[in-house]
Every structure is written in C-alpha cells, then in structure tokens.
C-alpha cells in the first residue's frame, strides 16, 4: 500500500517537474518571440522614412482627404465609376487569362511531377524544382523585366502572373494527383491509350473538381496581384490609380472611385468563388459518403 502511495508521489513530482520544464520552455520561447517582435519593430521603425508614433495621428489624414473630396464631388462619382470600369475589366481579364494559362501549365507540370503518372519518371525531381523556382519568383520581377522589353501594357503582367500561377498551382495540383486512383489509367493503358489520352480521360475526371476549386482561389489572389502590377506600369486599374494619385489633391475623387471599384470587385469575386468552391468541395464530400 505504502509502496503504491510512494509511486504516486513520485509520479506527481515527476509530472510537476515535467510541467515546470514545459512552462519554462514555453516562457523562454515567448520571451524570445516578444524580444524578436519588439526589436524587429524598432529596427523597422528606425529604417522607415517617417516614424510610427509621428505617423500614427496622420493615419486618417489621407483617407479623410480622399473621402471629403469624394463627398464634395459626389455627383461626379457615377461618371468616374463608368470611366474606370474598362480598366477594371482589363485588370480582371489579366487575372482571368493568367489563371487559365497558368492552370494549364500547372496541369501539365503537375502530371509530369507526380509519381505513377509522369511521362518521364526520371525527370520528376527536375519538374518539382522547376515548379519551386516558378513559385518563388515574385510576379513583379518578371513583370518589370518584361515591361522593359515589351513596353507597358497588360501582356507583361499576364505573363508574369501566369508564370507564378503555374508554379503555385502545380504544387497543389500534384498533391491532388497523388490521391488519384491509378486504376482508370491502367485500364486505358491496357487498351493502348497514349500518355495524353490516359491523363485526359483517366486522371482529369477524378481531379477536376479539386483543380477547379484551387484555380478559383488562385483567381481571387491573381486579381489582387494584377492590380498591384498595374501600379508599376502594367495597365489596368492599378495604372489608373497611380495616375490619379500622382496628380495629387483635386483628383482624389477619381482615386476614391478606383478604390471603390477595386474593393467591390475583390469582394464580389471573393463571394462568388467561395460559393462555388464550397459547392465543389461539398459535392465531393457527399459523394465520398455515398461510396463509403
């Protein structure tokens, strides 16, 4: 009896020691994290042109200016909205075309980089690294280089976004491919189908809902990217925004109209795509339940 009692006491001290050590470790990690955050903030604040505390009370100045000007010229707002609608459409088109082209590239790349499906199994690591590099390349880098060669306009932005999208989606697609059943592929192979036929008829029907869901999510991201690239000279609504900003005060009603358009475009696309994505994933879940 006493022995058991003793072992419980031992266990308790052991347990408490464990808890203390864990708390100590958690505490140290927390302190390191806080120190990193604070010192990082101080370095960033130091390197910034204007300090954080000086700028804080000016934070609302610019939005206030824009808003008050927009309110003053509220009558012109609808006209501005219509003026800038074509450039918004251009921005969306850049994102749309880039997502489509990027997704097609990702489809091929991901199939070439998936074990069991690849056309040249030995080259799988090569295609993987290729996708890693494409994914790591920020769009702005390619866009700026292409703007130098091709001049400003939507095409450099489209190519830049498509390039990055191919890498980013390629990784997600190849994760989907890994879960695809090989039976249809083997069946098609046994009747003499070519690699393209096996992929198109054997793999695509299995993976397309997931592909579509990821591509929609990417489309949302790409709209934002395409607006940003416009700001560095690649056309679309970002370019108009830069122009209206550089004219400064007196043109802020235009900037306000562009802000509004961009905001609503992003929110609406967000809503639509999350609706469809939900349908796609839920549809799949239901099917799984039936088969299970």
């Amino acid at each position, binding site marked *: 009896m006493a022995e058991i009692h003793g072992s419980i006491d031992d266990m308790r001290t052991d347990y408490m020691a464990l808890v203390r050590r864990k708390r100590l470790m958690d505490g140290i990690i927390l302190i390191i*994290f806080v120190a990193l955050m604070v010192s*990082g903030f101080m370095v*960033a604040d130091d390197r*910034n042109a204007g300090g954080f505390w000086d700028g804080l009370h000016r934070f609302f100045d610019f939005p206030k200016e824009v808003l008050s000007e927009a309110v003053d010229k509220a009558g012109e707002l609808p006209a501005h909205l219509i003026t800038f609608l074509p450039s918004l459409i251009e921005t969306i088109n850049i994102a749309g*075309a880039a997502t489509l082209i990027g997704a097609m590239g990702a489809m091929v790349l991901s199939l070439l980089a998936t074990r069991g499906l690849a056309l040249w199994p030995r080259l799988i690591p090569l295609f993987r690294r290729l996708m890693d*590099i494409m994914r790591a390349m920020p769009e702005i880098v390619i866009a700026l280089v292409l703007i130098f060669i091709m001049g400003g306009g939507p095409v450099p932005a489209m190519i830049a976004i498509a390039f990055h999208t191919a890498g980013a989606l390629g990784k997600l697609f190849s994760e989907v491919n890994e879960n695809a059943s090989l039976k249809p592929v083997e069946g098609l192979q046994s009747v003499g189908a070519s690699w393209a036929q096996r992929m198109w008829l054997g793999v695509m029907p299995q993976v397309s809902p997931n592909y579509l869901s990821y591509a929609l999510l990417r489309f949302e991201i790409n709209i934002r990217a395409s607006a940003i690239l416009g700001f560095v000279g690649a056309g679309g609504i970002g370019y108009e925004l830069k122009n209206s900003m550089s004219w400064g005060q007196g043109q802020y009603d235009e900037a306000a109209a562009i*802000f509004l358009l961009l905001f609503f475009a992003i929110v609406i696309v967000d809503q639509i795509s999350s609706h469809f994505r939900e349908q796609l994933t839920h549809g799949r879940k239901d099917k799984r339940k039936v088969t299970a």
Partner: protein
Amino acid sequence: MTMTATQTLKIEADAIFRRKRLMAFGLPLLILVYLAYTLFSFDVPGLIKRFEIDNARALVADSYSYKTHVTRDNRAGDVVIAVEGERKGTYPEGTSPDWVTLGEETRIDLENGHVVTFLPEKAVTYDVPGYGLIQAQSVGRKGVITTLPEGDVPEWINKSKNRLTITTEAGRLTVTRNRTEVFRYFTGWELFFFTLDSPYHGLSFGEVLGRAFSGEAGAILHDFWTNKMWRHDEVAWAMFETVLMAFLGTMGAAIVALPLAFLAAKNFSPLMLVRQVMRRFFDFFRGVDALIWTIVLARAFGPGPLTGALAILITDTGSFGKMFSEALENVDEKQIEGLQSTGAKPVQRYRFGVIPQVTPVLLSQILYYLESNTRSATIIGAITGGGIGLMLTQAMITQKDWEEVSYYIVLVILMVMLMDWFSGWLRRRLISGDESGR
C-alpha cells in the same frame, strides 16, 4: 413493357452522353474563345510591333557578361580604363589590365588578331583580321576622317561625318570628335568579390584563402563586404528588411486577429451583432487590397520597411480573422465541457480547452502565410521603397545594371525558397511536437 423501359433508359443515357460531349468540347472551346478575346483586348498584335528585341538582347547579354571601356579624351589625350564605364570600376591611373599596353601608343588587344591602337595626333587604327587596317583621325571641327581598305563599306562599319562606329564580335570601337572609345566584352559578373582598389583583386581563390589564414581574414571580409560595385552589405541588409517585413506583418496580424476571431466565432460570441460586425470588419480588411493599404500607410509613415510590415499586418488581420474564427467554430466542445465540470473559469477554459486544439491549425496557417508574405514583402517593398524590392526596381531603372538585376532575382528566389523550407520545417516540428507533448 420492358422494351419501353430500356428505351427510355437508352434515351436518358444518350442525353447524358450528349451533355458530357458538349462539356468535353464546349469547355475548351469556351476557354479558347476567352483567350482569343483577351488576346485582342490586350492588343497583342500592336505589342509584337513594339517589342524591342535590342533591349532583350542587351538584357540577356548583360546579365552574364560585362564590358570594359578603354576611352581616350581626344582633347586632353588621357586614357581611362573602366569596367562598365563606371567610376567605381576605374583602373587607377598608370595601371591597366594585361590586354592593354599604355604608352605613347596605346595598344589594345581584343584577341583573335583584333588589335586597336591609339596613336598620337588623335589618330586610331583598328586591324580587323580578314578585312584590313582601318585608320581614323579626329580632326576637331571637321569631324572624323576615316580611311578604309579598298572595296564596299561592310555593314558592321557605321561611318558619318562626325562619328565612326565599328562593331565586331571581338568588341566595339567608337570615334567621335571628343573621344575614342573601345569596348571589350567578357563573360561573368565583374568585380563580384573585390573591386580594383582592393589589394585582393585579381588573386586566385587559393591565394586569397592563403592570405586569410595568414591573418588577413578581417581585411578580406571587409573588402568583400564593402564592395562598391555590388554592395554586398546593403544587399544583405535589404534582404533582412524584406524578411523582417514579412515576419512583423505576419506575426503582428496573428496577434491582433486571435482575440478578434473569438468575437467572430459562433460558439464563443453569443451576440449576433458583434459577430456580424467583426466579420464585416475582416471582410473589409481583406477586401481593401494590400496595394491600397500600402498607399494609405505610405502617406502616413513615409516609405520604408515599417510601412510594408503594417500593410501586410492589416491585410492579413482580415485573412487570419476569418480563418481563425472558422477554426474556432470547429472546436470540439467536449474538452471545454470537461474543463467546465472541474470548475475552470472562462479564461482557463480558453487556455486549456480551446488553445491546444486550435494551435496546430493556426500555426500551420501562420507559417504558410509567412512564406507567401516574403514574396509579398518584395512586391510591397518595390512600391513603398524598402528591402530587396526597392534595390531591384532601382537596378532596373538604370536599364544597364542587368547583372545586378539577375543577381537580385537569384537572391529573391533563394530567399523565398529558404523561407518555404524553413516554415515547412518549423511547421512539422511544432505540430508533431504538439501531438506528442500535449
């Protein structure tokens, strides 16, 4: 009876097949039509006309090669040798690379038999193998007098009254009234390790290593680090700034979003109104793009890394708020109820019942964002002026330092891949640690 049943079945099946076929052919057709439409709305035919192949060629050539200029001022008669024609890469007076012989006559060996000689009296000769000797003299107001070998003037010689340009595969010679200039092209990135004023320039790797071991390591490192051409110190600082922006932005957003997410989660926030307000709040932060936040913040705080960090922080507060509140809504109630039955207070219930459940999910999302924000920080830096993004745009604006541009691009890619690997490693460690530890 059964016949009709099979018939209807067959008709139905045919209809399904037709629809499938329509989808199989219609969808690609639709995509094709859309792409064709964008092709024309983006004015691709006009773009092909504007395409500047020379720019592309210069960019590609410059990114892996460099040229050294040998220039004579035709008035004063001084000869200056400079890498890329930059002051930072100028050879000290009286010194020259071994392919240039200074003296009364300056002999420039462009290899493969191509030799340019600067003669006195503002004259110059260029011996082109297989063609002959080209003589030129700058004669003040009257311009440039050129004497070519007999025969037609070849395409690679461009001659006018005031200017002579000869472009061969070995290099280029330009003669104007004021100066005579020769370019010689080399492969590689010039002066990457040491500039010309460093005593370690031109030494082999082994020699430098030997000197490092004999006590000069500090000086060697200093010369490399403060290289005026490639500015390794500034580049390293810029990379650090970019990572700092991503780190501060992501972690700050997570810290701000976590408490707000509780207010937006159905099972923690009983008031419908609060929930709705918080959700609209998140939607607003996400919907106003990082671009707009960057512009607004740059007005208040000026350009710099802090602005970039705050722009990431604000945008991601929206994203994290939404994701965190969804994760909180999926929390298993049983653990909380169990804690409640032992008399735990609300704070304790959250700390021991909720946080351990959601930590793995939240951590993996935060770390995923950390990687993607490194890329965003590069882009935001290019707009607000901070970090490697700024250096990249600055190098591009000069339109000649393409070797620096390609260097920065390689660095950015390595940085993002490193962050990707690091966040993956941390995610695996922390989350698997959670499973065994808690």
